[in-house]
């Protein structure tokens, strides 16, 4: 240092502000890029957190420690029994002739853990299958055969339109109508909801993947698929009068009664897309004549309350998949994965901070139902 001459020293001193400015600019640019990626600079950009906020708002209140959607449910356990027919479609271990145990959850749509079973149009089955090769497959399936809307944005708008009006405590009919008018595909779902007969049990309901997935077999051949768990329990329709008379928790009571007599079974039926079938739009159904392969059975053997059961702390993220199964380009799949993760983080945080006594079954009395 002492060897340097005074001339460059003077020069560098005079120009000190320039490199300092450059350093400040570089650091600020990186911070801004980070903030932009995080969504902090774009309050209107839809993020998983903002989507989850909208779900919480539409629920009317936050039920601490419970799932933000499909909050009411019951844990189940059992196994999947492959029949070998799926091996040609996917290298997933599940499809071999083995039994793969699962921790599952049967639930109803809606954001309240005190939702009324006889008012819930949507029923669901979620499974976490643990194969003996160490791989995991999580499924989150619904009783509707196709999705209500065709895009993530429309799903968000639907959620926002269903938020209760503070004045009435019910969704604003004008907003619901405006949403339906803006999304013509919703009419088909409304039609399904209105006219499809209700069944009497979780056990005689079919559960569908709704979104499209991609199977690949050991030879590297790929197929776009959807699947459905078709009940072996005979369908029995429930009349509006029967529903009106049914208990608020009739689905859980019915499930426990049935399981006391033996396991419940569903066939897993895989439908293979033909060229031209919509992969990215889960609101579009595929024609009935598509090739279908029954690949095995879901067998539920037991149930336990979700407050203490093993399903409570599982995020049934439909994109946790084994080798041989991948998500498709359906944007709803990625969005579900992202929003489920936020919901999971929030409810686990509720439990950790002691705000979720009801959700973990440690409350002396139930919190008031809305």
């Amino acid at each position, binding site marked *: 240092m002492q060897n340097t001459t005074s001339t460059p020293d003077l020069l560098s001193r005079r120009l000190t502000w320039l490199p300092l400015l450059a350093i400040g600019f570089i650091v600020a640019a990186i911070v801004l890029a980070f903030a932009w990626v995080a969504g902090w600079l774009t309050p209107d950009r839809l993020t998983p957190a903002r989507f989850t906020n909208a779900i919480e708002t539409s629920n009317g209140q936050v039920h601490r420690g419970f799932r933000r959607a499909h909050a009411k449910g019951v844990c189940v356990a059992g196994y999947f029994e492959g029949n070998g027919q799926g091996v040609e479609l996917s290298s997933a271990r599940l499809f071999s002739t083995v039994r793969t145990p699962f921790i599952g959850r049967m639930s109803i749509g809606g954001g309240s853990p005190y939702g009324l079973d006889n008012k819930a149009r949507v029923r669901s089955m979620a499974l976490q299958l643990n194969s003996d090769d160490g791989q995991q497959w999580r499924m989150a399936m619904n009783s509707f055969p196709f999705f209500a809307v065709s895009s993530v944005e429309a799903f968000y708008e639907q959620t926002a339109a269903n938020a209760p009006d503070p004045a009435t405590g019910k969704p604003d009919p004008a907003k619901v109508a405006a949403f339906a008018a803006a999304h013509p595909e919703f009419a088909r779902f409304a039609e399904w909801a209105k006219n499809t007969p209700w069944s009497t049990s979780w056990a005689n309901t079919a559960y569908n993947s709704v979104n499209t997935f991609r199977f690949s077999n050991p030879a590297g051949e790929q197929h776009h698929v959807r699947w459905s768990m078709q009940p072996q329990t005979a369908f029995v329709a429930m009349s509006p009068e029967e529903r009106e008379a049914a208990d608020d928790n009739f689905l859980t009571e019915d499930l426990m009664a049935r399981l006391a007599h033996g396991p419940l079974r569903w066939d897993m039926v895989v439908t293979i897309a033909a060229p031209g079938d919509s992969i990215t739009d889960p609101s579009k159904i595929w024609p009935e004549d598509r090739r279908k392969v029954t690949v095995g059975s879901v067998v539920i053997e037991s149930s336990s309350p979700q407050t203490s059961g093993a399903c409570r702390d599982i995020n049934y993220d439909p994109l946790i998949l084994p080798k041989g199964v991948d998500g498709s380009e359906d944007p709803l799949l990625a*969005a579900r*994965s992202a929003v489920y993760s936020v919901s999971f983080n929030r409810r686990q945080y509720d439990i950790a901070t002691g705000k979720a006594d009801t959700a973990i079954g440690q409350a002396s009395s139930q919190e008031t139902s809305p």
Partner: protein
Amino acid sequence: MNDTANVPENHAPLNHVESCPDPRHFNFTARVLHWSMALMILAMLFVGIGMVSSLSLRPALISLHQPLGIAILLLVIVRLINRLRHRPPPLPADLPAVQVFAAKASHWLLYALMFAMPLIGWCMLSVGGYPVTMFNGFALPAIAPHNATVYAVFRSAHTWLALLLFATVLMHLAAALFHAWVRRDDVFASMARGYVTNAKTLGEEKEHENSANE
């Protein structure tokens, strides 16, 4: 200047530069690890914030985040061993004490975070019941039992320590550029290249060689 006495005998004169009392730059391994990990860590921070704030990119980014995190964990082990076995070049003698402290503290903080972030990430996924997927068909084993409360703690820690790591990386970058452009000392060069180009230090290098020959 009898620092060579501290270097274990079995690997003392690895090359002519390291046999000098004060190395003028970080060794080749350190430089390769530094620049590749700098790129990986900056990428990880952006991938991490991107995957929790995007409704469409999460699947792609998470499948990158997990193996990259484990790769950083493996590399930082190699890096720490290399760092402990090879003395880094000294800071300039005229550096103010507070900057010396900031330099040393921030480097150990960076090392601590480079270890902590992937370990907390692995732990967090384990206690959250998630598989830690390296690539399609291969997942790492859980390193802690499934637990909601521990998950919440680790999940929060992963976020806050990531932000601390981001801030530390930025300060590190700003300080490095300050050395290069404002102080114009050899600190940046000691990591940027393996040989010294400017005439002054070349002269000093020669002096060292001469003194080593004596």
